[in-house]
């Protein structure tokens, strides 16, 4: 057991500041354990979201020492002994209180995406899909909707005025997953990504990929293929070339 100094943001939309808490850490502990310990012993009203505490639900997103991370998957032993650890809410979203932010932007974007329009099933009422045809989409389906990619994306983070016309990395892979879905029959997804989702604003700095706790290749496997699809839509020659070559393989 060692005493650790945690600098945790306390406040609401009216204002706030970091407050220091000295708290005991133990073997194998993660940042969320210490936040819980602060709640139980020093600050019962310290607000944070969490559910599974296993990196599966994506609720406990925060900025730890400035880096977007899940508190439940950030082990205390990655920090130097004696180091003060700073925990702040995701900066991109409006603050509700302490570490809790209003992430409704993401739920609005989710709703704007046209749903799957499946083709008719086989005569026996079921579908056939080959594993190799769904591998890449299954990668996108690993997304736990922690919104860390949305938090770090500079288009959303620094351009309030673009929020209306930009869906963000989480939803680019959502659309990409639908576009690549073997059962989907919609033809208008590239147009949606260009016009409503604003993928053109992404300049592929890969910040989203770097912070993804599920290690999804958001940029390489999701965003870049969508950008290419957009181009294909405009350029019939390129479209034919790509069709003949076949779709690119996932990079991992």
């Amino acid at each position, binding site marked *: 057991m060692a005493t650790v100094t945690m600098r945790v943001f306390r406040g609401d939309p009216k204002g706030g500041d970091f407050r220091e808490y000295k708290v005991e850490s133990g073997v194998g502990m*993660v940042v969320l354990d210490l936040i819980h310990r602060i709640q139980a012993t020093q*600050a*019962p009203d310290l607000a944070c979201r969490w559910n599974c505490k296993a990196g599966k639900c994506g*609720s406990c997103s925060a900025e730890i020492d400035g880096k977007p991370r899940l508190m439940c998957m950030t082990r205390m032993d990655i920090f130097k002994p004696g180091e003060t650890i700073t925990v702040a809410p995701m900066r991109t979203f409006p603050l509700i209180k302490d570490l809790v932010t209003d992430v409704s932007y993401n739920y609005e974007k989710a709703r704007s995406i046209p749903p799957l329009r499946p083709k008719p099933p086989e005569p026996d009422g079921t579908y056939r899909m080959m594993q190799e045809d769904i591998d890449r989409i299954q990668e996108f389906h690993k997304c736990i909707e922690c919104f860390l990619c949305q938090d770090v994306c500079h288009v959303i983070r620094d351009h309030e005025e673009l929020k209306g016309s930009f869906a963000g990395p989480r939803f680019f892979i959502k659309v990409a997953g639908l576009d690549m879905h073997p059962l989907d029959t919609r033809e208008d997804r590239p147009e949606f990504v260009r016009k409503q989702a604003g993928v053109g604003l992404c300049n592929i700095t890969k910040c989203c990929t770097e912070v993804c706790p599920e290690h999804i290749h958001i940029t390489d496997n999701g965003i870049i293929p969508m950008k290419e699809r957009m181009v294909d839509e405009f350029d019939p020659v390129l479209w034919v070339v790509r069709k003949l070559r076949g779709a690119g393989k996932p990079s991992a």
Partner: protein
Amino acid sequence: MATAGGYETHEHDVIIIGAGGAGLRAAIEAAAQGVSVGLICKSLLGKAHTVMAEGGVAAALGNVYPEDNWQVHFRDTMRGGKMLNNWRMAQLHAQEAPDRVLELERWGALFDRTKDGRILQRDFGGHRYARLAHVGDRTGLEMIRTLQYHAIHQSIDVYMECKLERLLQDDNGRVVGAFGYWRNTGQFVVFKAKAVVLATGGIGKAWRITSNSWESTGDGHSLAAWAGADLIDMEFVQFHPTGMVWPPSVAGLLVTEGVRGDGGTLKNKAGERFMFNYIPEFFKSETADNIEEADRWYEDKSNRRTPDLLPRDEVARAINTEVKAGRGSPHGGVFLDIASRRPADYIRKRLPSMYHQFKELAGVDITKEPMEVGPTCHYMMGGVRVDADTTAATVPGLFAAGEVAGGMHGSNRLGGNSLSDLIVFGRRAGLHAGLYAKNFGGQLSVSAGRLEDLAREALEPLTRTGGENPYALQAELQDTMHTLVGIIRTESELKEAITRIAVFKDRARKVRVEGGRTYNPGWHTALDLSSLLTVAECVTRAALERTESRGGHTRDDHPYTDDQWGKVNVVVRLRDGGIRLSREPLPEMPAELRALVQERK
């Protein structure tokens, strides 16, 4: 409402409390009836406990073993539940699960595939054939995301981070809504509705070592009981045999049964595959009694099943015994070894999230070394007594589906049968709540005085002087349930637990929290104590009542299964502020189904 600063009101034909698999599926079906639907969740949408389900969804699709069918699934489910299941629920579940899984695929779910492009199925405990449709070991995530993205395009109003404290009833006792608060503002809200579906999940947060999140505080069980509805089978709590045991901060975190389904075995510290020493008479004819046959079974189902995949109650008890006898692992569990039995690539492909979880949180590479595992509180078999076909509870206007409903799983649930339960009975709940709402006559009337009382009561923890810390009280309750109402129970300890719970109830009335109403977890924890204490007491009293051992209820002082107890449910009712218990006969199973169940392997 001067005291409470007012409340907002929403009105729907049907409200659904809980937005995990059952709640989402119920909302989709209710919306399909053309009624107005409100879906209310305690967390953000998509974060409910379903997201943590790992191994798969059980459905007799027959894709891997064409000889599988609903009859075999029904038989396995009834035998796994030690015959205490509501037979009609088990039948509907086995019959309808395949259609519900295929429906998810139509809505975009991508399950792992067989070589010919069908849905792949994996082995799990207590299932005769490989039956679990899955996506690696993150099946629950795929299911909840599919349902969530389907639901948001239906006509459903979603209310997030809203906790409901009480159901509202009219003068005729009909459930006509619910009262609660927004977690982010602390302001009160009233939902008026012609029908209410409970889909609130489990009660695992009443125990210390648990695979359940903060949400599993028995809300729906308590809401129903407080409204006068019957609960059944409350003594049956499932301890999953394999939770993480080390480091302490992750103790209880689930390790999917899929590890054993895919070839992993349990070993004690001597390296012995001890499960061969724990095959009960009831499962002898279908369980391999030697290593060679057990290992052949994975590929050839003409062999008997490995005892590593006995139902969960059997495996959890066996691990408990090994550890108590001093044959456990260094941190008080046993070893679960897949590293020496399957290639690293296979393990990473089949169990990616287990690989990730052990690597990141325990520093263990499961492709190279064994895991340390031990029992963790996982699932509540007992719950709201419902009509099998309609999911209607015993008070009018109330329906229940998923973990909060009782009966489907009898005394012990088979792995994989929960995700299928959610979608089969979630759909039925939405359908029948919708039909009930269409036929609803009269006005939706709720008493203003009642709302005033509820609001005042809810605010008390914020205004008391001095008093108890809600977190500390919750932790003491968890310790009590863990040490006195755990896997192995005995009369004196259960009585001690009842005494302590009475003291906790008294102390809960003195809880004090700092801060205001805006997103205040201390206040939320204080308010959750009433449901936690209610379910803790229901479980303990029912456990004291049932003087036999069966499924998820093991009595040290009554170690045998008693045929007389096999004919009755323990029914729990709240009357005049106290718990009343009664033993009531199980529904009579038709002869043709009885024949299926009695069939030897």
